[in-house]
């Protein structure tokens, strides 16, 4: 078994509407895989099918080597938080975790450990309905960790968290991955995913746009050279040089932006020097995951 998750042609149709169409991707074992896509692109539908909550209309899939048509074979090793936390408002955080621990047959001693791990040790005895959104989210993560999972599926785990909470979740995911846990995480915080996800699955309108390594996706994007002349009067001269050499370029923020690989930087610098223009700065900007996402999804 090399994949934590593997799906082929996975499809879900509701009446006339196709929520997921022939999705095929793999999540390598022991890695963090980001799952991104605009709202309504089919992320949660996919996650629900992987967890046995809804049945696929077509296609096949495996989770930890077991078919998704038998979720009872793999779910004891899977932790999940789907579409935000959902608990009993009249029970305390600790009681809520104990309900799930009883249900899964996990030792109740884990409850205290997990409350501490997510920073809720002082509020474990408070009723869930008194929790802030961030605390509810933390409790959801604690619940997902109850089975000491081999695969962790998290749907928007940083929703409602403050910057330090987001950082804690990022570190938690990193730690889990370093211990060998596979993590499949959907998030709208693409900058966060860029930092932690080794691979990505990108969806739009129920279709997989990209599935593979994050660095391959980013490397495939065309970089931008940003050239800043010593004197702004030379901006047009620089623009002219770039266009004459077949590059797409524009002027903005006191610099010339040229669509070109990093390798062309040295050539451009030489051409500018020969034309009598001194550059005060020449930088290469690689598109971020967020820019790539907007580019690919057309959002």
């Amino acid at each position: 078994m090399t994949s934590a998750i593997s799906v082929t042609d996975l499809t879900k149709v509701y009446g006339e509407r196709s929520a997921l169409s022939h999705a095929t991707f793999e999540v390598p074992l022991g890695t963090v895989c980001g799952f991104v896509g605009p709202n309504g692109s089919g992320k949660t539908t996919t996650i629900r099918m992987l967890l046995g909550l809804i049945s696929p209309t077509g296609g096949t899939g495996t989770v930890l080597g077991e078919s998704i048509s038998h979720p009872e074979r793999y779910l004891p090793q899977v932790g999940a938080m789907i579409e935000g936390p959902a608990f009993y408002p009249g029970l305390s955080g600790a009681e809520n975790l104990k309900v799930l621990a009883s249900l899964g047959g996990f030792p109740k001693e884990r409850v205290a450990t997990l409350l501490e791990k997510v920073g809720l040790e002082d509020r474990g005895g408070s009723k869930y309905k008194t929790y802030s959104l961030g605390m509810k989210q933390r409790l959801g993560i604690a619940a997902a960790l109850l089975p000491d999972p081999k695969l962790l599926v998290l749907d928007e785990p940083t929703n409602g968290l403050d910057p330090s909470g987001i950082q804690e979740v990022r570190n938690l995911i990193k730690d889990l991955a370093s211990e060998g846990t596979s993590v499949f995480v959907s998030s709208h915080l693409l900058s966060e995913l860029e930092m932690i996800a080794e691979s990505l699955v990108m969806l739009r309108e129920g279709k997989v746009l990209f599935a593979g390594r994050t660095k391959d996706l980013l490397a495939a994007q065309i970089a931008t050279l940003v050239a800043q002349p010593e004197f702004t009067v030379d901006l047009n001269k620089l623009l002219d040089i770039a266009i004459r050499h077949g590059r797409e370029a524009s002027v903005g923020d006191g610099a010339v932006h040229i669509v070109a690989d990093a390798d062309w930087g040295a050539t451009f610098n030489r051409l500018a020097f020969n034309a009598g223009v001194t550059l005060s700065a020449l930088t290469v900007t690689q598109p971020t995951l967020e820019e790539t996402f907007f580019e690919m999804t057309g959002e």
Partner: protein
Amino acid sequence: MFNVMRAELRKLRRPTLLVSTILVVAVLTALFTSIVYLRANSGQGNGQRGEIISPAILSQAAGLVYGFKIVSFFLGITALCVFASQTAQEYTLGTLRNLLVRQPSRMKILSGKYLSMVIFAIALVTIDAIVAISVSYGLAPHAKVTTTAWFTSTALSLLGRTFINVLLTTIAFGTFGMILGLLFRSPISAISTGVIWSLILETILGGVVSSTQKWLPGQNFDNIAQGGSLTVSYQWSMGISAAYLVVGFAIVAILFKRRDVAN
């Protein structure tokens, strides 16, 4: 299944639910039993549907359980509400997905839930019995009821039989509530439908067309606790109640097993 049952019992024993339900049952039982004894010598109706239960009747062995079984209908309605809300709230709170991730066998979830609620029903009926018998014994001298026959083996065997019958009635109403909860997936809709049907529509229907009484589920459930009536036998009520509940439960169990959990 037993893991599910343990998890469900943890939810059922939360103070707001447990204490309020126990209080409702205890107060209703004490109230209804008191009326039977305080009005026993008034010559006016002090029993179910205006029946006159005289001190002479209450002095018999069956007098021990009269107060106990008179509350069965309201005990049933309480169970209906609890079973319906405990089932339907999993959908409205979105907690069903957590349950199914931790226990993917939906039939185990359903049977564990049912088992825990049966235990809850046993607790309710036990409280009903204790309160009713205590109030009966306390008020017997005031109503000039002699209690000698209450301590005979006949009375004790009657107590055992009534306990089982009241429990069956409570479980039947509770099962009805659970069926509605699974069907409507909303506590408010399930409880209001169950209560309006059992408390209002069945009473009107049974009152207007008396021949319908032997077919109405709520009337039959309650008839079990009463040990049968002059018009509808105990055996008939047991049979028709079981038929309704088995068919109803089978339908919702299939729905529960097959339905996508999309909320």
